[in-house]
């Protein structure tokens, strides 16, 4: 898929003169300049959409991230409050950064109960690279990438999230679950 740049462009005489083309370019930029400059007065009066400006004042204004966005990975929590995770360890293996730590727990053969669950499930966000491999590897639809990206903090130790911090109700993750189902069905896993 190499992309070659055509360096032998045939330019017309008008383009070779260079100056007219510069003036054309400057006309475009100064058109934007004056449009924005005179749109500045309604902007100051509070009408922020008067100018064709795309800037979002980030902490005050936020945009909805697309559903394919990979924020911090979270654990899905079933309706009865238990994690959907069965502690198989596939995400731990799939993780290229080794940020997941799982210690499994299981019941002693009682019927109609959860057979396996993670006793400890830690994700260290200081190490996580947000690749989404854990989500892809999970056979139980238990771990998902959320749209939360505001996880920076001053203490590294606090970035190690435990199971209780990671659990998120399934209802909040419904869109992402749909998206992953579609995506992985398309890729024929």
């Amino acid at each position, binding site marked *: 898929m190499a992309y070659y740049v055509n360096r032998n462009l045939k330019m017309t005489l008008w383009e070779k003169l260079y100056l007219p083309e510069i003036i054309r370019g*400057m006309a475009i930029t100064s058109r934007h300049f004056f449009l924005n400059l005179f749109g500045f007065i309604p902007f100051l009066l509070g009408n922020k959409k008067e100018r064709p400006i795309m800037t979002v004042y980030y902490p005050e204004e936020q945009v909805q991230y697309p559903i394919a966005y990979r924020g911090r990975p979270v654990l899905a929590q079933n309706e009865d409050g238990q994690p959907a995770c069965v502690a198989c360890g596939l995400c731990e293996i799939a993780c290229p950064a080794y940020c997941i730590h799982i210690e499994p727990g299981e019941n002693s053969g009682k019927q109609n109960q959860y057979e396996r669950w993670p006793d400890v499930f830690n994700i260290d966000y200081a190490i996580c690279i947000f690749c989404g491999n854990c989500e892809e590897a999970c056979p139980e639809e238990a771990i998902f990438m959320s749209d939360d990206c505001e996880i920076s903090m001053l203490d590294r130790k606090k970035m190690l999230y435990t199971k209780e911090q990671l659990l998120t109700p399934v209802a909040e993750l419904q869109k992402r679950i749909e998206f992953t189902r579609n995506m992985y069905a398309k890729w024929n896993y």
Partner: protein
Amino acid sequence: MWVDLAITFVKILFVLAITVGFFAPVLTWVERKQSAIMQDRIGANRADILGFTVLGLFHIIADALKMFTKEDFIPQGANKILHTISPIIAVVPALLTFAVVPFGGQYTLFGKEVNLVISDLDVGLLFVFAIASLATYGYVIAGWSSNNNWSLLGSMRTASQMISYEVTMGLTIIGVLMVYGSMKLTTIGAIQEDFFKWGLFLQPLGFVMFLAASIAENKRIPFDNPEAESEIVAGYFTEYSGLKFGMFFMAEFIEMVTIGAIMTILFFGAWHIPFLTTATLLGWFDFLGTTGANLIVMLIQVGVFFTKVIFFIWLQMTIRWTLPRFRYDQIMKLGWKILLPLSLANILVTGIIILVLN
């Protein structure tokens, strides 16, 4: 004599105040803000004092504070003396050019003839050219004394670029000189009282070439190879921090004002309003008495002059945020193969026309 000294002192103070005190800091803000609104962004507006942002104007103070408090770093193996004085060598020529730049005409104030130029040299044009080429030393020494590969590369590029474009600049100035017949900048300004004698109409090619050459002299985009940040880190000021870096930065902005002023005087009618001679203006305000009328006209014309300078600064900024950087060979090609022959042809054509008209 003391009055003359005092007047000169006031003029020096005025020039310093308007360049170092007003233009250099405000232009840092203007550059950010203009680039932002040209690119449909908002630009710097977060620095605030008690919640007031005032369009981001407090970023000037924030920048100054940052530069004052930064560590003044001299790299190991650097030549300490040269490393320290080269920012000064870079700033001084930019300021020195203003010594011969007239920012207004001649006015009679309180029975005293006041010429709004610090030093009305007979060879003003030559002085401007000489001082402009002196600035090269600051950049070359800065790059050489830093003991850094990128700095050296940057200073070599500076040297070759500035020398190449000085040729064009000098030859363009000759065209202007032939038209006006004087090296005195005040005379050149005074001749342009007639709208049809503006350098823009007498030397249209010279105008474009002088603009290109002076932007190249100032090392701004599209001619910013000496400090090309994507190729050689920051060129000659890679190893500079704090206020020394600030001085290079200031030199660039002051030089922008200088270029604007020189362009205004040579090509854009100096301090004159089109179709309005000084005599007409004086006639309008005649009811205020000689001194009053002169004072009003002086204020108007200084205002007009700096409006034109601001226009040229705007033009340079627009060019800077519109065009991409030239490749190094393209700069040399443009300088030696296109601008030099064109400027020679310009002199020839100007000479022929002057001969025919006389």
